[in-house]
C-alpha cells in the first residue's frame, strides 16, 4: 500500500478524468437535455456547457495547485479550519459514495432490461462490486493501468457504433438552428452541465500528479474529449430519432442503436455490444468514485489502512444502490447528485480559492 508514492503523468490524469466523466449519464443525456431545450439546438447547449465546465475546472485545479501533494480532504482544513473541513469532507465523501452507488444501479437497471432479463439484480451487482474492489485495492497505479486499457477500446467502439446510425440521420431533424433564439439553449444548460460531473476527481488526483503545473492542461484535454463524445452522441441521436422521437424513450442512446440493423458487418445488431462496452465505462466511474471515497475517509480521519476502508464501504454502497425503488427514483437520485455537485464542486472551490488567497494559505502558485 505505497499508494502515496504512485505518480501519474498528464496523459494518465486525462484518462482518469474522461473515464470518470463518461458514465451512465450518456444513456439518458439526449432525453434530459432535449426535453429541457425543446428545440433542436441541444448540441449548442452541450458545447456551451462544455466551455463553462472548462472554466470551472480550471478554477478547481488552481485551488489544488496551491497545496501540492495534498488532496482536498487534507487542505480544506488549512483553509477553513478543522470543523468546517470535517463537514465539507464528509459531504464530499458521501457524494462520491452515492455516485458510485448510482452508477451501479443504472448499470443493473439497463442490463436487467436489455441483456440479462432474468438474472437477479444482486447477482449482477455483486460481480461488478467484487471486481471493482479487486481493482481498487491495488491502488492508483493499478486503476490507471486498467483505465488506460478501457478508455481507447470503449471510446473507439462507442463512437463507431453511434456513427453507424448515419443511415437514419436526417439533417432536417437538427434544423432550424437557433430558430427560437438563444433562450431554449440557456434552458438546456442545467441538464447538460449535470452531465459533466466528474471533473471533481482532480481534487484528489492533482495531489498524485508528477507535474501539478500541467493539471490545467489535463483538465482542458479531459473536458475536450468528453465534450466531443457528448456532442457526437447528441447530434446523432437527435438527428436520427428526431426531437419528438426521443421525448418518450427511456434510454434514447440505446434506442438509437436498436433502431438499425446492418447486414454483413459481423454483427447485425449492435445494442448488446454497445452495452457490454459501455458497462466497462460505468465500471470505471464506479471504481474511481469508490476509490475517491476511500481516500477521503483515509485523509480526513488520518487512517492508516485504506484497504479496510474500501471493504467497509462496500455494504454501504450496495445498500444505497438498492434504495431507489423505481427507475423514476433512480433518475431523481441522478438529478439530485448533479445539483449537489454544482454546489460542491463549482461554487465551493471558487469560495475556497478566494479564502485561501485572502488568508494567504497554501503555497505560492505551483
Amino acid at each position: 500500500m505505497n499508494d502515496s508514492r504512485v505518480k501519474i503523468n498528464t496523459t494518465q490524469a486525462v484518462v482518469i478524468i474522461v473515464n470518470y466523466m463518461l458514465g451512465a449519464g450518456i444513456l439518458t443525456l439526449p432525453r434530459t437535455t432535449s426535453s429541457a431545450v425543446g428545440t433542436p439546438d441541444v448540441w449548442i447547449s452541450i458545447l456551451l456547457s462544455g466551455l463553462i465546465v472548462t472554466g470551472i475546472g480550471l478554477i478547481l485545479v488552481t485551488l489544488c495547485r496551491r497545496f501540492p501533494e495534498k488532496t482536498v480532504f487534507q487542505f480544506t482544513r488549512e483553509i477553513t479550519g478543522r470543523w468546517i473541513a470535517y463537514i465539507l469532507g464528509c459531504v464530499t465523501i458521501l457524494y462520491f459514495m452515492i455516485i458510485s452507488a448510482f452508477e451501479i444501479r443504472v448499470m443493473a437497471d439497463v442490463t436487467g432490461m436489455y441483456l440479462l432479463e432474468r438474472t437477479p439484480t444482486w447477482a449482477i451487482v455483486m460481480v461488478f462490486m467484487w471486481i471493482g474492489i479487486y481493482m481498487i485495492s491495488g491502488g492508483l497505479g493499478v486503476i490507471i493501468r486498467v483505465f488506460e486499457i478501457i478508455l481507447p477500446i470503449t471510446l473507439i467502439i462507442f463512437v463507431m457504433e453511434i456513427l453507424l446510425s448515419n443511415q437514419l440521420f436526417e439533417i432536417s431533424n437538427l434544423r432550424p438552428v437557433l430558430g427560437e433564439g438563444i433562450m431554449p439553449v440557456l434552458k438546456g444548460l442545467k441538464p447538460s452541465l449535470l452531465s459533466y460531473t466528474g471533473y471533481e476527481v482532480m481534487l484528489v488526483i492533482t495531489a498524485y500528479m508528477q507535474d501539478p503545473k500541467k493539471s490545467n492542461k489535463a483538465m482542458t484535454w479531459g473536458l475536450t474529449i468528453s465534450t466531443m463524445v457528448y456532442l457526437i452522441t447528441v447530434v446523432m441521436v437527435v438527428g436520427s430519432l428526431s426531437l419528438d422521437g426521443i421525448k418518450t424513450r427511456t434510454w434514447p442512446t440505446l434506442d438509437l442503436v436498436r433502431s438499425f440493423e446492418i447486414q454483413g458487418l459481423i454483427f447485425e445488431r449492435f445494442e448488446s455490444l454497445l452495452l457490454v462496452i459501455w458497462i466497462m465505462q460505468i465500471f470505471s466511474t464506479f471504481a474511481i468514485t469508490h476509490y475517491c471515497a476511500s481516500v477521503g475517509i483515509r485523509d480526513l480521519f488520518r487512517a492508516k489502512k485504506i484497504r479496510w476502508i474500501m471493504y467497509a464501504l462496500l455494504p454501504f454502497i450496495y445498500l444505497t444502490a438498492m434504495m431507489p425503488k423505481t427507475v423514476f427514483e433512480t433518475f431523481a437520485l441522478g438529478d439530485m447528485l448533479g445539483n449537489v455537485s454544482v454546489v460542491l464542486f463549482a461554487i465551493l472551490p471558487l469560495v475556497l480559492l478566494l479564502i485561501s488567497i485572502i488568508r494567504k494559505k497554501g503555497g505560492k502558485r505551483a
Partner: protein
Amino acid sequence: MISFRMCLRVTCAVFILCIISGCWSSREIEDLSLYVGLGIDVGKETDFEKKISAQGGHYPKQNNVTATVQIAPGNSSSQKSQQSGSPSSGKESYSNEQLTGDSMLQIFRQFALRRDRPLIGHHLKVIVISKDIAKKYGLIQLLDFVLRDNDIRPNCLVLISHQRAVDVLTSDDPSRIPAFYLTGITNNAYISNKILEPVSLAKLDAQMQSGSSFLLQNVLNANGEDKFSGGSIFAANTTKFLGELSQTDLEALSWLMPKKQGGVIKTYSKEGFTVLYEIKKKKIKIIPKVNGDDISFHVKAESEGWLMEDWRAPEEEEKGAYLKEMENDFAELVEQQIKQLLYKLQHTYKVDVAGFRDSIRIKYPKTWKKVKGNWDEIFATIPITYEVKTSITNPGSSTE
C-alpha cells in the same frame, strides 16, 4: 498453515471456474419461439378458441383485438396449426398463431398456456395492422405495448393491410416466410416511387409524438400473394385511419419529397404510342413564403432521366423537337398528378402528409410556432403552386 491457505486458494479457483463457465439465465434458442411477424386484426375468435371457451376455458376479456404471431421456423411435428405455411408434410417454414383478447401483452402471455416454447420478440421484423382495427383504435394505443417492450427493436416495420392482417401474413408458397418477404419488398423503395420510404417503429413513434398526420404503406392480398399499393393516411391527434392514397398519388407524392428517388413516368405520344421515362436524378425544393399571416408554398421540381421505352412505329430518330415535346408531356403529366394529390390532401382529407410542415418549421420557426397547433386545418387553405421540369439526358442503350 501454508498448506491450508494453499487449499483455500485452490478451492476458490475451482469454485470460480465452475461459476464463470456457466450462464445465469440462458435459454436455448431451440426452446424459444421467435416471432418475426405480428398481425393486428379486429377481434374474431378462431374455431379453437370458441371450442375452448365452450369448455369453460376462457378468462375475463373483451374480444377487441386478434393478434397473429408468425413464428419461424414453424412446427416440425405432424401436428398441424390452423394457419400453416404448408399443409403438406415436413418442416414448415413458418406458422401463424392467433389469439383474441383486449390487451396485447395478455394475448402474448396467453400463448404460454398453449405452446411449450415461449415467445420472444427480439426478431420481430414487421407489424401488419388491418385497416378496420385502425379505424377503431389509434395506432398509439395498438402499438403502445410494442413501443414499451424491451425485446422488440424499434427498427421493426409497420404496414397497413386492406383486409385482414392474417391474410397478408399467409402465403401459398410454403418456402416463403411472409414477414421476410414483406421486409424485402419495402427495401425496393429506391427503385419505385410507388413504395413509401420504410417506416420503422422508431420513426412512427416520432411522427405520432410530433402531432402530425402521417402515411403508412398499404398491402393488398389476393390468392395468397401480397402486393404493395398506395398508402393509408392517419389523423394527427387520434392516430386513427383516415383515408387512403392510391398508387398514383404516391407517385405524385414523390415529387414533393426530396428524399424519394427512382420511378418512371408513362405518357402517350400524339399518335397514341406508349412512351416511358425513367427518373434518374431529382431535385426538389419546397419554398415556403410567409407574408404577414399568409402562408404559401411554391414547389420547384426538376428531374433528369432517360427515355427508356418508346413504342412509336415506324421508328424515327429522336430529335430535339420530339424530345422537347416529350419532356413537356412528362412534366404536364406530373403536374396533373400533383394537382390531384393536392386536391385530395387539401380538400378531401385536409391533412399534410407531404412534409410541407418541415419546410416551414425550418424556414419560419416563429410562424410555425403559431400555426403548429392546428396545422392540418391551416394547410387545407394554403395556396400551393408548383412547376415541374423534366429533361431527357439519355436515350438508353439504343438511340432509335
